[in-house]
């Protein structure tokens, strides 16, 4: 991929962001596969996704640099301004998510929350399998949850497809390698945006908190 000539290599995505991203890729695919006949694995995959999504939301507030929502969630004017330039055939230089991509990030997180949130209460048609909180709701409510769970997965599939199309568009049209940055964490940018990381204790606190919540939910709130 061509990069600007006067480029500096910048550490853009921290370890937690990259790990969460790639684990979500693997686990969403695994959850899809296991939803048919491997519901036990499907549940465990779901608990892991709950932990990852909760951690990512926490990290959006407590993390550093390009992980912070405040660094990339922009208002409608900034989104419109970016959207007006997105078709230009030049290398993208946004240090992190661009204002348009920010919407995709938030929508993905929202749909994932709906996905795992409904999954907790799902009851399958045979009333034999269910989420860890399915005993708190009636069969009817559990079935309705199952339908939302299935429909929101269609929404998730659409968002993932859009995500992949956008990556291909940036790679081919804008000659910007976004995948490499999500693997190595580094991007070449015209200047150093001066991103600062978060202290390690915040990372540990977030991991412990997210894992604890996911664990308690997996136990059906019974300890």
């Amino acid at each position, binding site marked *: 991929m061509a990069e600007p000539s006067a480029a500096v290599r910048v550490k853009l995505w921290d370890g937690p962001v990259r790990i969460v991203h790639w684990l979500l890729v693997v686990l969403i695919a695994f959850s899809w596969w296991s939803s048919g006949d491997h519901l036990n694995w499907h549940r465990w995959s779901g608990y892991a996704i709950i932990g990852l999504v909760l951690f990512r939301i926490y990290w959006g507030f407590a993390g550093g640099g390009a992980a912070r929502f*405040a660094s990339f*969630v*922009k*208002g*409608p*004017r*900034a*989104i419109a301004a970016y959207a007006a330039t997105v078709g230009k055939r030049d290398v993208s230089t946004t240090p992190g998510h661009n204002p348009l991509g*920010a*919407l995709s990030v*938030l*929508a993905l*997180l*929202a*749909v994932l*929350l*709906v996905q795992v949130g*409904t999954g907790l209460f799902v*009851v399958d*048609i*045979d*009333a*034999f*399998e*269910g989420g860890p909180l*399915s*005993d708190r709701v*009636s*069969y*009817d409510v*559990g*079935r*309705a949850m199952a*339908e*939302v*769970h*299935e*429909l*929101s997965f269609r*929404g998730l599939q659409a968002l993932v497809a859009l995500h992949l199309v956008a990556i291909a568009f940036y790679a081919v049209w804008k000659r910007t390698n976004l995948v490499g940055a999500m693997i190595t964490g580094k991007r070449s940018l015209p200047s150093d945006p001066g991103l600062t990381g978060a202290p390690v204790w915040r990372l540990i606190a977030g991991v412990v908190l997210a894992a604890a919540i996911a664990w308690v939910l997996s136990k059906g709130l019974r300890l």
Partner: protein
Amino acid sequence: MASLMSKSWALALAVGLGVAAAGGALAHDDKMPANANAATKAAYARHENFEKLGASFKGLNDELRKPAPDKAVVAANAKTMNALVGALPTWFPRGSGVEARPMSEAKAGIWTDAAGFTAAATAARTEVAKLNASAAAGDLEAVKAQVRPVGGTCKGCHEKYRQEKKG
């Protein structure tokens, strides 16, 4: 900028909630028309009965997952299941499929492969009768061992003779 940013948040949340609301609307069952004929009435009554069957099996399974299951609750749910499954073959009068209710999940195979369907229904009846006997005797271990075969007959029949509802 803060208020503009919250608009972006609202937009993203709206996507998630919109998906959820659409799902909720989809999950809502249609109402039986006032002038429904016998076949249509049968299609709606069948749906009610399957909901009762699902609710009783769920009630039984939920009870079994408790640290100290109440034998009376297990027995009552098993008894309900036994009565419902015994009557199940009568819930499918000819003509009560999607032609009677577009939302019906009954596949045509129920009637075109009547022998196969009857065999599947009989298998369910046999397994639920065992479940009911153990539950009535208060043998929770036997009930626990029997829920999987029962669930298996539900699933086996659903995979062959049930379709996802339309609309």
